[in-house]
């Protein structure tokens, strides 16, 4: 049993403990909660503390009785409003992602093409808003976009417009602020991929007769595919469940599922409904999260080779 002795002596004990500590934490505080959400989504709202019914009841004969209440899900799938809200959330997240990509790609590309000495400064400038408060950055736009806000004031005092522009609490302000808030999450992974790219590949493409634009589409874009996917997922997934931006700058008719969940929970005190909304959202996001995870790990392992 040489192997066992060997393993015990200098492989196992340390290794198992080292894995167990973060594993246990994540299991208890991240994975298990989802099961609880699932469980409570099958409960009914109740006037109690906590405000929901129990799924398990012991009847007189000691018989365990499980009540699965599907009403919440029936409601979500039956009510058009919910369906519309999910669709609208996905749409907002999708177009936010596309716009972030269209704006972020040229910026990331330009930074990657800058000389290394100045590159660090530029990168720092992208990071800086990311490090300052998200909430305050959203707030900044409120002052700019309001009917009596800074932009309208400026334009009116210059005489370009006589009536304030409608830019606040509507779709325009929602998208603008969404793109603004999520842009750094797109730029950083894109930059990380572009900067690693060997410029000689482009030179070789040019040498073989490809014009710059052609070379970009044939070489640069495909090689930055992983960055595009990583950045897009980092924007898309949280954007689906975004609450702060639609709440503060979105229009009254803006339907976002994060806001609905928040309202069910905090305003209606309907915890089972909020749990059901969350469950459906997780199901919708499972594929993009899986995709993100796959590229994330592949990226790190690729470096390893």
């Amino acid at each position: 049993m040489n192997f066992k002795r060997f393993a015990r002596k200098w492989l196992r004990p340390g290794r198992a403990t080292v894995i167990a500590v973060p594993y246990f934490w994540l299991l208890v505080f991240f994975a298990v909660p989802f099961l609880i959400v699932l469980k409570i989504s099958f409960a009914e709202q109740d006037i109690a503390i906590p405000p929901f019914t129990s799924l398990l009841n012991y009847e007189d004969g000691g018989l365990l009785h499980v009540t699965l209440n599907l009403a919440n899900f029936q409601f979500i799938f039956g009510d058009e409003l919910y369906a519309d809200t999910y669709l609208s959330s996905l749409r907002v997240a999708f177009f936010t992602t596309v716009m972030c990509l269209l704006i972020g790609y040229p910026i990331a590309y330009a930074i990657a093409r800058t000389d290394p000495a100045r590159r660090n400064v530029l990168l720092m400038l992208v990071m800086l808003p990311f490090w300052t408060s998200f909430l305050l950055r959203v707030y900044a736009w409120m002052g700019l976009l309001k009917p009596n806000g800074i932009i309208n004031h400026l334009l009116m005092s210059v005489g370009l417009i006589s009536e304030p522009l409608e830019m606040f609490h509507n779709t325009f302000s929602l998208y603008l602020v969404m793109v603004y808030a999520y842009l750094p999450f797109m730029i950083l992974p894109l930059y990380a991929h572009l900067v690693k790219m060997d410029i000689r590949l482009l030179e070789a493409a040019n040498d073989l007769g490809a014009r710059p634009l052609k070379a970009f589409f044939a070489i640069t874009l495909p090689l930055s595919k992983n960055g595009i996917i990583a950045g897009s997922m980092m924007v898309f997934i949280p954007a689906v469940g975004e609450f702060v931006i639609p709440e503060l700058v979105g229009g009254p008719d803006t339907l976002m599922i994060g806001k609905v969940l928040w309202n069910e929970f905090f305003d209606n005190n309907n915890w089972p409904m909020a749990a059901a909304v969350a469950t459906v959202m997780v199901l919708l996001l499972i594929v993009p999260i899986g995709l993100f995870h796959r590229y994330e790990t592949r990226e790190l392992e690729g470096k390893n080779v």
Partner: protein
Amino acid sequence: MMEAVAAAAPVQTGVQAHNTPYLQISGIFKKFGDNVAVDHVDLDIRQHEIFALLGSSGCGKSTLLRMLAGMERPTSGRIVLDGQDITHLAPYDRPINMMFQSYALFPHMSVEQNIAFGLKQDKLPKGEIESRVAEMLDLVQMRKYAHRKPYQLSGGQQQRVALARSLAKRPKLLLLDEPLGALDKKLRQQTQLELVNTLEKVGVTCIMVTHDQEEAMTMATRIGIMSEGQLLQVGTPGEIYDYPNCRFTAEFIGETNLLTGMVSVDEPDHVEIDVPELEGRIWIDHGITGPKGMQVWTSIRPEDVRLDRKPPATPGVNSARGTVVEIAYLGSYSVYHVRLPSGKVIKSMVPSSRWYEAGEEAPTWDETVYVSWRPDLPVVMTR
């Protein structure tokens, strides 16, 4: 046993063992998943020996070295060092140290701290550590640089620090993984001799791993040739070059002409081999231990192949006619590629003085020439 059939005088190493081997590797086998990395290797190493494991990348030599260091665990087999079975000993409990290929100097520690690291793990008294570090710094002539960080050193200096660090604990066995692989060619040749001198001065037993045959030939007292996880041949540099026991060794060490043939005459004092590529025979002036009709391979080194304009005395035996297809002029000698009618190309290495002394013009492209060799020079191999 069909090996080393050509060994006319089975020369044994000068350092012949008069005691049990210092390091005994027996039946070491290692699998990664379904891939066999090291295939039942047996090897004995004597004390104070500098042994080189030579092979191309992926041949299993590095895995074998890592198993000696304890970084990998053999699937089966035994390693005994100086009477102690170390097969299952953890790396940090082994009296073995290693100089890593990229040196693996700790970047956040000075030269001095790097050398002292292993001694500190042994919890030696402070004074002892200091004096040993000083001794090591002197050994590799790096005293001046004791307080530098690794990145403030050149490649050659880093190599010396790595050597000092691995010698500081006075290991029973020193492992060198491509010791000079990270240096450029010019520096490498200069460092080879320096390294051997240091190792001999310390008198440590060494196993080095390299893919560079010149490095192995210059530095090692004995060489083991590895391919596909197997140890094919072990011997002194001279033995390996002059008496390769298989085609792989013959082609891996130096250049050679390899001819496939069939034993047609097998007498105690001579052997004849029919070689279709020559459209003739090879006649060898000693016997081999193989039956008639057996397929064998013959290796003839280019420097053993004579090039002439005149046909040899015994046409069809130990000679062939061909045309010059390629000439590589290399200063003091030239290598001629001669294509035989069968299409086989024989390389012949000819000293530049040969033609001058004979009062002839050197042969040129497309000239018809004859290649020939002495009957004692070809080496016959059965695998």
